[in-house]
């Protein structure tokens, strides 16, 4: 055996096991969930080893399905709004001088360095019936009774946007920054006004970044529950809350697993459609 082959073997024998273990750690539970979703629920939690699709049928019961559907719609709203906010923001940063860009990015990322939890509570404090905004409006007689901004779908959506916005900015920024200025010059040189250049060159070339942003926002948004806890105050339930209650109070594990698998399928389906519509295969994404 040549030395070069030996060296390669040495690398694989070190890295290989870690690699396999990591894959097991990450993929294993995933597989377990899929299996569990096709089992029967145990009486006091747990599962019984019988194949059934009851858990999936339960999803389509009206009360549950309404909640899940609402979750999906809120997650989509959140994603679209995050994109609408983060795209101009990222675009704005890439238009700045190079030296200033990382500073601006750091600035927007700074609050992200503290946990989402605290930032959410600060929203509660700002928005609740005795919060600063209500007090300001009352003091200046814009309103006569305090308004409850919290504990509804909009508050939850706002919270979701707030927590996941930084995730949307970064991939778009990266994609925009990679676009060769020369291509924009060429477009302008060939007679295209800025709006056309944006639509025909900038936007298509940043599609991969937008795709990444969609994944990074939609996926956690569809599963998030603590935001609904805090800003929805138990009145706005999301699929995440439903899942948690199946594993805790309701003790219906297969149903919890089935909702997860269902949401995963919805997510993959949406990404597939996005991919087709966006013609991302053109970009080698």
């Amino acid at each position, binding site marked *: 055996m040549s030395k070069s082959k030996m060296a390669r073997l040495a690398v694989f024998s070190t890295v290989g096991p870690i690699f396999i273990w990591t894959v097991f750690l990450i993929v294993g539970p995933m597989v377990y969930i899929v299996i569990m979703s096709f089992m029967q629920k145990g009486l006091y939690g747990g599962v019984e080893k019988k194949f059934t699709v009851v858990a999936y049928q339960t999803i389509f019961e009206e009360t549950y399905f309404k909640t899940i559907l609402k979750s999906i719609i809120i997650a989509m709203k959140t994603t679209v709004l995050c994109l609408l906010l983060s795209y101009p923001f990222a675009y704005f940063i890439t238009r700045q001088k190079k030296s200033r860009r990382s500073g601006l990015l750091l600035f927007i990322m700074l609050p992200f360095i503290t946990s989402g939890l605290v930032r959410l509570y600060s929203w509660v404090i700002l928005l609740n019936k005795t919060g600063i905004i209500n007090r300001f409006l009352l003091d200046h007689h814009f309103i006569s009774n305090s308004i409850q901004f919290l504990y509804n779908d909009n508050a939850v959506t706002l919270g979701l946007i707030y927590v996941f916005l930084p995730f949307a900015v970064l991939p778009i920024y990266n994609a925009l920054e990679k676009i060769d200025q*020369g291509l924009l*010059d*060429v477009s302008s*040189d*060939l*007679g*295209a*006004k800025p709006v056309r250049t944006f639509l025909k060159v900038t936007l298509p*070339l940043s599609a991969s970044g937008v795709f990444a942003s969609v994944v990074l926002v939609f996926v956690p948004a569809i599963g998030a529950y603590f935001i609904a806890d805090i800003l929805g105050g138990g009145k706005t339930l999301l699929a995440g809350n439903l899942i948690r209650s199946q594993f805790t109070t309701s003790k219906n594990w297969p149903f919890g697993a089935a909702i997860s698998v269902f949401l995963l399928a919805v997510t993959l389906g949406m990404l597939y459609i996005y991919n087709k519509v966006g013609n991302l295969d053109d*970009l080698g994404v």
Partner: protein
Amino acid sequence: MVSPIVVMKDVVKKYGDLEVVKSLNLEVDSGEFLTLLGPSGCGKTTTLRMIAGFEAATSGIISVENERVEDKEPYERNVNTVFQNYSLFPHMSIFENVAYGLTVKKKKKAEIKEKVLEMLEMVQLNGYENRKPDQISGGQKQRVAIARALVNHPKVLLLDEPLGALDMKLRKQMQLELKRLQKKLGITFIFVTHDQEEALTMSDRIAVMNGGILEQVGSSKEIYDSPNTRFVADFIGESNLFEGLIKKFLNEKEMLVGTEVGDIPVRWLEGEIGENIDVCIRPEYLKFSPEKILHGVPAVVKDFIFAGSIIKTILQMNNGLELIVSTFTETEGIHLGDLVYVYWETKHAVPIRRKENLLMDVLAQTQREVFYHVEE
């Protein structure tokens, strides 16, 4: 008289305190192939980009077809550019790339198709219209970039070192193709390069730039045979340079210049006796012989360099400086270490004004102009 299609007047470009282009004056005639030639960082690309509209001139006037364009955006100027690194749209097919300018101008689909296919045929890329830029070779990409610009029939085509990324053989081939296209279409080409040979073979006129200054504008022959400045002599082709001062005017065509290695006969120059000048002699105009010759400069044979069609003989003069002599064939009977005498025809010894003297001229002229204006 052909009227100039592009005029640049007192154009200055500053980045902060750095003056990249210094008061540039240039007129480009309609249908001309003009090359901006100079080393990296001489301001040639910046000049081109100011004409295209990608850079705003700090001051000065730029006009295309008698219309001032300084404040116009690139998309409002009737010039097109071919970039060094191709800059093809990676998400569009070759057809869509070439069609881009026409689509923007909202031409009819049938017309676009006809024109694009015609142009692709002209650059010998018929059949490639459905490929993506990453599916074609470097030379093909360059041809697409040229087609994409030319399909719009611009008044002026700007080319920014378009052949820089190609290898030698392909480059030579593309040079011929470009020249052919330019003649055929009669479009004005402004071509940027740092390759002197490319400039010399392709251009109607060459504008040599150095440090943001236009050193000389003229035909290949003028630039090569009668360089205005030491820089031009040194940058374009190879040259043997002597430092000296004017000693004597021999007749209306010749003068005698005193140098470290003796008095040498030089082409006539409007100058004064005692003025410091440089003398440039191209290596192919130098001759040498083992026998002593009047005004011949003694030198020792140091080296022979075989450069293909040309053999360069390196000679060392008494003052230690080296001369290069180019010949097509080996000089028989001459060996390393031989003492030879170098001579030349006087018309090939070109006198060059020193920069400081040139500056004096400019100052004098400026003063004259100021007086003129005052008198008005």
